[in-house]
Structures are given as structure tokens and as C-alpha cells.
């Protein structure tokens, strides 16, 4: 297992390096550029050119890249052009919100998706199956921002749920870790915990829609595959009860592709979070990223995209490890 881990870590280094080149080259190939975005309406071509000169953006791109890499290796990703704050500090400040939101969305997606998928498979062709299939299709097809706006307009007021932000303005909660719920629990500020949970509900459900639909469909397909396996006949003939067969044989064997999907969906959550956080003014990394793209904030975008890539690589490693736990055959290989 250790060798496997070391190999994966070593593989991650060139992956991140290549990604850094791609991100760097892509950002610099975009028309517009940070100087124009920074100077706003008052930007004249002359002002843009001179600010580009001051920022060093008129130097050869290779030189710019190596300067960036040199600083990045020491952990210095520069300051955001929008907020003038160190980018690494910003990531630290905003990451907890995204983890809170992403985790809630994944919990919703798994807690609802796996049973829905199982039920659909179990009643294949029946009413529950058809209803679930239609709902998952809708879930995948509806864009997150549309769903977000619809939830804000239609659900927020009737359910009494806040439609934007992470915290009500009146709540002045103590901030220790920047995880709103955790901070509230640590300081026994139960109003703040409750407030944070309320603020999470709508964005978490909006963000959960796509992973929920995907997990439901994968679970359904996977369970159906297992239903057709020979070993179920053996289990049946051994006289095991149906509930034991379902849990021990069907679910356990059907879980492998589901875990892969969960891993991939977790990585993809950052993409969904960009829109969800923006629509709900939920100030996490997605919010930072959206603002960074609008304002062509190179330092922030470079750091965030590489951070996203790092998360993706890490999640994939975790998925591989969890394979070994769920299916011992993988470990032996």
C-alpha cells in the first residue's frame, strides 16, 4: 500500500506541473487581460499598456512562467488583483465555506442517491423506477444557476430559508476555523449553528442535484448488474434471507462503481460550486473563482485552478485507496 501511495504522489508532480503550464498559457491567451479589467471603464489603450508594463505582463510568456513557478514553489502565489490580499490567505479564508457546502451536497447526494438507485433497480420497469429515471434526467439537464434562481424565487420565502450568504447579518458569530457550523458548536453558539445550517440548505440542495442524479443512475445500473450475477443464485440456494443477500452481496458488490462516481463527482463539485456560490452569494472558492474570471485576476485564478487540480488528484488517490478497502481483490493486484 505504501509503495502504491508513493507512486501516486510521484505521478502527481508532473501532472501538476503540466497543469500549471496549461493554466498559465490559457490565462494569458485570453483576450482582455487584468489591466483592462482593473482599470474598468476608464481604461484607455495607453493606460492598459503601461499597467501591463508595470505588472510585467509585456514580458515574454516563458519568462513570466518561470518567475511565477519560482515564486509558487516557495508558496508565494502573489496578491489578488481584485482584493489586493495574498491569494494563499484568500484560499485559507474561503476554503471552509466550499468544504461545508460541498460536503453537505455530497451527503445529500449519497444519502438520497444510493437508496433511490437501489429502489429503482429493485422495481425495474415499475412506477418507482420510471419516476426516479425521469427525475434524474431532469436533475442532470437543469442548469445549476437556473435551479438556484428558481429555488430562491419559489422556495426561499415560503420555507423561510435565507437565499443568500452564509450567515444572517445580525448573527455575530465567533470565527475560529471559518467553518461556520463547527465554530458555532465549539463556542456553543447554537443560534449561529442553526443560522449556518439554514443558510446551507438551498445552495446545498442546488449543488447536490447533479451528483444526486448521477449517483442514483450509477447505483441503479450497478445494482442491476449484480442482480444478474451467478453468485446471487448461490446465495439464494444457500438459503440466506433476502435482506442479508441485499446488504451483503448486492449492495457491497454494487458499491465499487458508485464509489468511483462519488470520487469523480466530488472533484466536479468545484465546477458546480462556482455557479452555486455565485447565485447564493455563498462566499467560498467558487465565488472567488467567478469573481477572478470576471476581473481577469491572474494570480488568484492560477492559484485556484492549481488548487482545484490538486484536490482532484487527491480525491482520485482516495478513491483508489477506497477500492482496496471495498474490494480486497484490488489490493492483491
Amino acid at each position, binding site marked *: 500500500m505504501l509503495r502504491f501511495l508513493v507512486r501516486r504522489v510521484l505521478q502527481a508532480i508532473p501532472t501538476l506541473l503540466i497543469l500549471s503550464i496549461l493554466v498559465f498559457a490559457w490565462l494569458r491567451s485570453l483576450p482582455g487581460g487584468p489591466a483592462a479589467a482593473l482599470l474598468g*471603464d476608464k481604461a484607455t489603450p495607453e493606460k492598459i499598456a503601461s499597467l501591463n508594463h*508595470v505588472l510585467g505582463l509585456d514580458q515574454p510568456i516563458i519568462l513570466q512562467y518561470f518567475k511565477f513557478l519560482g515564486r509558487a514553489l516557495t508558496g*508565494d502565489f502573489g496578491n489578488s488583483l481584485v482584493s489586493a490580499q495574498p491569494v494563499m490567505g484568500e484560499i485559507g479564508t474561503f476554503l471552509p465555506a466550499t468544504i461545508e457546502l460541498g460536503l453537505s451536497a455530497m451527503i445529500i447526494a449519497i444519502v438520497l442517491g444510493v437508496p433511490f438507485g437501489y429502489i429503482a433497480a429493485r422495481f425495474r420497469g415499475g412506477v418507482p423506477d420510471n419516476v426516479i429515471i425521469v427525475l434524474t434526467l431532469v436533475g442532470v439537464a437543469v442548469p445549476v444557476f437556473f435551479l438556484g434562481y428558481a429555488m430562491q424565487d419559489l422556495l426561499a*420565502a415560503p*420555507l423561510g430559508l435565507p437565499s443568500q450568504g452564509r450567515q444572517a*447579518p445580525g448573527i455575530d458569530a465567533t470565527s475560529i476555523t471559518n467553518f461556520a457550523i463547527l465554530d458555532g458548536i465549539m463556542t456553543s453558539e447554537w443560534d449561529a449553528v442553526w443560522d449556518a*445550517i439554514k443558510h446551507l440548505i438551498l445552495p446545498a440542495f442546488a449543488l447536490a442535484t447533479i451528483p444526486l442524479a448521477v449517483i442514483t443512475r450509477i447505483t441503479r445500473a450497478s445494482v442491476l448488474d449484480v442482480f444478474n450475477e451467478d453468485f446471487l443464485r448461490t446465495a439464494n440456494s444457500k438459503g440466506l434471507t433476502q435482506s442479508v443477500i441485499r446488504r451483503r452481496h448486492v449492495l457491497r458488490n454494487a458499491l465499487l462503481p458508485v464509489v468511483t462516481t462519488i470520487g469523480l463527482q466530488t472533484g466536479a463539485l468545484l465546477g458546480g460550486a462556482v455557479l452555486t456560490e455565485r447565485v447564493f*452569494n455563498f462566499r467560498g472558492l467558487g465565488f472567488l473563482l*467567478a*469573481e477572478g474570471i470576471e476581473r481577469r485576476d491572474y494570480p488568484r485564478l492560477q492559484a485556484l485552478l492549481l488548487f482545484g487540480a490538486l484536490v482532484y488528484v487527491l480525491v482520485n488517490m482516495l478513491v483508489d485507496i477506497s477500492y482496496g478497502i471495498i474490494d480486497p481483490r484490488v489490493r492483491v493486484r
Partner: protein
Amino acid sequence: MQQLRLTRTRRAALIGFAGVLAVSLTACAESKRDEAGGGGTGGTMVFGDTGNPKMFDPAFNDDGETFRITRQMLDTLIQNKQGTAELEPSLATKWEPSNDGKTWTFTLKQGVKFSDGTAFDASAVCYNFDRWYNMKGAAAQSQMIYYGDVFEGFAHNEGDASGDPVYKSCEAKDPSTAVINLNKAKGAFPAAFTLPSFAMQSPTALKQYDADKVTQSGDSFTYSDYAYKHVTGTGPFKFDSWDQGKGEITLVRNDSSTEPAKLDKLVFKVIPDENARKQALKAGDIQGYDFPAPQDYGLLRNEGEQVLIRPSFNVLYLGINQSGNPKLKDPRVRQALAYGINREQFVKSKLAEGSEVATEFVPKAISGYTDDVTKYPYDPAKAKQLLAEAGASNLTLKFYYPTEVTRPYMPNPADTFTSISEDLKNIGITIQPVAEPWNGGYKDDVQKFGKQDLHLLGWTGDYNDAGNFVGTFFGREKKEFGFNNPELFNALAQADGSPAGDAHAKAYQNVNKMIMDYLPAIPIAYPTPAIVVGPKIKGVVASPLTDERFNNVTIG
């Protein structure tokens, strides 16, 4: 054992699901609206901002989001009368130029203190002027956009700064008299003294927190702690905190101000998404926000919110690039375009209430505006005739317009494009549309490269001076318009150098007439952006310059 573990998992899942449901249901019982603050004086107003401020030292800033916050904390020598672009006393009770316009004498209000307890007097004024002029370092100077524009240069130009400085020196004759000496007269004065960038800051605090230290790290800038936490002025509010995670900037009443605010606290909450701002207002999380979409005005009013329309201080124009298609050099073709556009109809059907058809490139509130210019009322027959006379009946034009953007002068660029291009098609012009994202090369293509024949753009004024509009557009040869008219360029330079007062206004009136005869582009409309506040908020006066000061705000 296996069985037990699965049971636990299932139980946990059920509990989790039940929890989510319970949260949803209990939340239904919660009250929808928690109004902040009490009645009369005191209380807190939360205002929804469209974007992050950069930091709070206004000398290094040029964006509206930052200025909205700094103008609540820092006063300028002269200010705009609330609701208008007229000048009125602020820290200076009187200001007088010399005959040649090269010396400005400011008589200062007495008994004023900065929020750190130090006195505001003539030496503080001189300290601020000298600070800007003597600013060192390419990074710092490159951030001082307005100083560079208005004062044209520094004691020692560094990096991209160039030009001969307008500023010469400042003398503190006595504590309440500051005299600014200039190397040449500048038409932008005195209006430019109202710019938030030229607000007075405490010399003690500036020195204590090393405010001038702006450094560049890679492709970004770092400012001193002063700019983030210690900005110190004489205004009705003072800085309290900036929570980056929550996107909230909190100001508290400055009790040492000669006119402290009525509110206890003023919070700015950054909510970039317009719909989210609307939702936050409806929920009572914020008590006001900027730039509601015109299509929401009715809805917002129906819900009891106050939509305050700002008098127009901007202009939307159709740019004509004469170096694109040679036919555009013919004045008859440019006139035909102007006669061919039904601006009345466009303004009525596509722009927010209060918007008007533009007859020249400066809005009515600006000194230098004149009604006595050549006008081009909608007349498609005349347009066709002019095109025929110019031998341009089969004209094909590349028409650039921006996407992914909303500007105060152009709430919906695609709509604007469609409306104008339909009119132009009606007079026989073939339009080749080119849509480009605002931050994705649009401005580069039209302003730097001049790839277009026609384009849409506009301008929001910074201060009450016609030069800030027409000088910016037509003061010199530019790729955007592709013409060289030395007569016009000279007239603009002379108007800019004419001393303040009637002569200055007259000079710009003449320039405006020249421009509308020459017609280098077509002014389309003076749109009116709005600001919206909740039903209980009193004392917000919509400003043409988006210069709303919240010192008199109370929550009823």
C-alpha cells in the same frame, strides 16, 4: 457483526435525512423579515455592493465600489451638492482661483478633527497635496489613475507616469488658508477637487502606518496596513472592520466629526449577483443596493421598496471609425447614420424611466452643455438621400457590440445593438454584427486596434467638467474614431486650459457645437441608473455622480 455495522449505517443515514427534513420544516416557521436597527437615529444599515473594494486609500483607487465606502469616511475640500453635480463647500468653505487660474486659495472650515483626534488644517491639506505629488515608486504611481489624469505628472515620474506636472506647490498661509500653486491653469478645477481620490487624510495616520509603501510582487501589488485597516478622515463614519470571508465592511459613526452620521453602523455587503441582491433586500438582509435592473423597478416598487432614479451623468454613443470604411470619412454618411436612427423610440422602449435622447456628448447636468447644437431628428428619407448623394447607398458596415456586460449607460448591449442595427438596415445599410465579451477583447478591438466601423460604448462622468467627457473622447487622434481634426483637438486643449467660470463653460459650449457639426460619433442617450433602498430607509438622495452619502440616513 457485519449486520450490526450496516444497521448503524442505515440508522445514521435515516437520522441524517430526517435531520435535513426537520431543518427544512422548522425553518418554515421562522419569520421572513428581520429588520435591522431601530427608529430615528441609531441602528444599522446594510447596503449591498456589486463588487469588492480594492482597499481604502482613495489615492490609489479609481473604482466606484471603493469610493462608495471611502466617501463615507473621508471628506474632500469641495463636494457635490446632494442630488446634483453642483459644487458646494465641504472641508473648504470658500475657494478662489487667481485671474490666470494658476493659484487656488482655499479657506478651510475650522474646528475640524480627523477621527484619530488630530487637527485638520492648512498644513494637513498641504501634506496631502505634497504626498500625491511626491509619491515614489512605479507601483504606487501606476495606481494613482486620477492624480495622473488631473495633475498630469509627478515630481519624479516613474514607471509609466509621464508628462509635466500641473501641481507646483502648496502653502499653509495660516491654519485655515491653504494656497495651491499650479504650473498652468487646468479646466478640470475646481470640479476635480470633488473626486474621492483627492479626499483629505490624516497626515499622522498616513505616516504612522507607512501609507505610501506600495510594492509590486510578481504581477500584483501590496499596500501597507493603512490602506486595509487604518484609513483616517474627517467624515461622518470611521472604519471598523473588513471581514473578507463574509465580504462585509463595517463602518461606525465618527463621533469626532463635525457632522457625525445618524446611523450607529453602516455595513457594506458584497453581493455580485444582481438577483441575489434583490433576494437579500426582499428578505431584509440588506436595506439597499445599487444598479437594480430596469425591468425590476416595477416589481421592487410593488413590494414597497424605494427605487431612486439618478439624474443622468453618462452618455451612450454609437462610435464611428472613419479609418475603417473610407465612406465614413464623408460627413454626409455620418449624418445619414444620425438621421437614420430612431433614438426617441429606442429610449422609450429599451431604457429605464427618466432616460433621455442625447443631443450631444455631455449630459445636461454638466457645465458646458448647450441646447444650441445641430440636431439630427429621426428622418429615414433624408438619411437615404444623404447616402445616395455620397454614393454610399450599398454600404456594408462591421458593427461591434459587447456581451457579458451591463454598464450604467448600457443596461442591455444586445438590445441596443438590435434596435440600432434594425434602423440602419431600414436605410439600406448592410450590417455585419460582431459580438464580443466585454472582458474578452471588446475594448481592445474597438479602442486599441480600431477593427470596427461602428461600435457601442459610453462613459460615466467622474466630476462636473465637460472635458471629462468630450476631452476624453475627441481630444486627440484615437484608433477608436480614426480621424484627425487638428481644429477640434486645439479647441479642446484650449477649453481645458481656460480658467474656471463662464469662459470655461462657453469654451466647451463652442466645442460641443463643433463636435455636433463634425459628428465624429453619434450620441444616443443619457440613461439613468438607479439605487434602491428599503421602505424604512430615509435620507438617501440619489446622486448623478453615484455620490450618495449616508450621513443623514435614518431607519424609520
